């Protein structure tokens, strides 16, 4: 009975996978060359599409990792600090040193400026 259910499952899943694969078009992109150009109201793109898009939450993410995540690791560290002592202090110092590079980078890029 279990073997039958397993066989049915295998057949079902592989059938579904085949259906998915059948929809993937193989070969060159359909359409003529003018159709591949992005629609800009009649204009042509001047630069390549491959570029670093400015996400507006990027500085916030950087600050979040630098300050929030460091706190997350400091709670368990505080529990074992008394036990381990100087070695734990040195390890946390190294960790904070690495994180502070991110903070200094953000500082240089001006993310602490009030807008």
């Amino acid at each position: 009975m279990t073997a039958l259910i397993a066989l049915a499952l295998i057949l079902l899943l592989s059938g579904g996978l085949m259906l998915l694969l059948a929809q993937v078009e193989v070969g060159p992109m359909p359409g003529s060359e003018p159709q591949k150009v992005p629609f800009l109201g009649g204009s042509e793109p001047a630069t390549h599409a491959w570029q670093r898009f400015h996400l507006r939450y990027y500085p916030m993410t950087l600050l979040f990792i630098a300050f929030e995540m460091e706190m997350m690791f400091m709670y368990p560290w505080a529990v074992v600090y008394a036990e381990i002592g100087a070695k734990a202090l040195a390890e946390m110092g190294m960790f904070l040193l690495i994180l502070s590079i991110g903070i200094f980078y953000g500082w240089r890029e001006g993310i602490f400026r009030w807008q």
Partner: protein
Amino acid sequence: MAVSEAIPRGHRQVRYFAAIGEDALAWVEGLARDAGLRRVPTPRAASLLLIAGRLPERSWPALRRVHDQMPHPRAVLHWGEGAQPVPDAVALAPAATPAVAMRALQGDLDRGARGSSPDLLPNEPPAPWLGKGPHGQGGEGMMGGTPYGRPMTMRGDELRDGLRLDAHAVTLGPFAPMLPPGLALDLRLQGDVIQRVEVMQPPFRDAMVEAPFAAAIDRPMSAAGLERARAVHHLRCLGRFCALRGAAAPAARAYASAYRATIGGRVDLGSLRRWLWLSGLRPGIAPGLGTLSAAQRGCLSGPALRAAGVPDDLRTRLEPYTGVGFAPIARQAGDVRARIDQWLAEAAQALDLAARLEGLPPTTFAEGLEGPAGALGAPAGGDRGDRPALDLDALLRGLEWGQAVSVLASFSPDALRRMLGAAG
């Protein structure tokens, strides 16, 4: 009318992309009342290209690109006079109603009775592959040259948070659906924040809205009719603004009100005002958005000028308006909010004036009159010449793209064309 009645049995909705030329915006917006036709914002979703009005020759290359971006099968309809670059376009006189022709064309395409409109541009990449190896590798310099024919974007200055990333250069228009017809902008963006704007082409002429007002300078016209035309213009501008902000319900109501004002029906602007507020559209416009600097304020005219605190209106000096106690409406802020409120208030005022001026003999306004977007005729001719041109870069720099679209839509297309200093 229910949708099922509007679309004849056996016909599907016709999806068309409108390439709007000179004096044709009102025509195309009139088609929105037909539930069987749907204007789509990109040619990729359209099977019909509607070229409306006369197209200046400088926009032909852009139209060829738009035409070729439509998927097959496709057809082209040219509604209006003058030449255009698509040889197999079906011509339609300006006075004709295109809905029937559009459905017939779609039906022919569906049945295969009509061949698809062939490409106008050669089937080769506009920016060919320049790399040495099969994957574009091996060019010159750090970026590997320009393997895809277009240069890579480089880091550029950033106005808002100082994080310098790639400055995206993009040219939009003249058939971009979110911009006034004909307007082409060259933009530098970081994310969606505008760093620099350059006007490549001003909007096309849109003299149709002013036609009855311009005619009243030479021959007698009914002042009530002119006021109704003014209300229609303001309501259309409101509808366009709502549609661009994605508020379909207030947009439909504004257009419906404009249509009822055209045919002389009863218009309930209180309902439109409630829709503007309750849909979240009016409260959602940031206060202070699109305020012109004191130096720039000189290029404003008409409702936009009155929304910026200058109660300038030729109607205060002209018969028959003085006879019915006309007083101009003005507000202080001069931002997008104020201009939207001003359109609605002036539309209501114009409808009220039309009711009071009904039945008076037609008047000739030989010394000029107040048009829907500013003074027209003799006294205006002199001062319009020395108006400063609008510095669009100063107005839009630092705004997000969506905000910039709102600012541009808060001026009527023809007013924007004059503010940008286009002649004629």
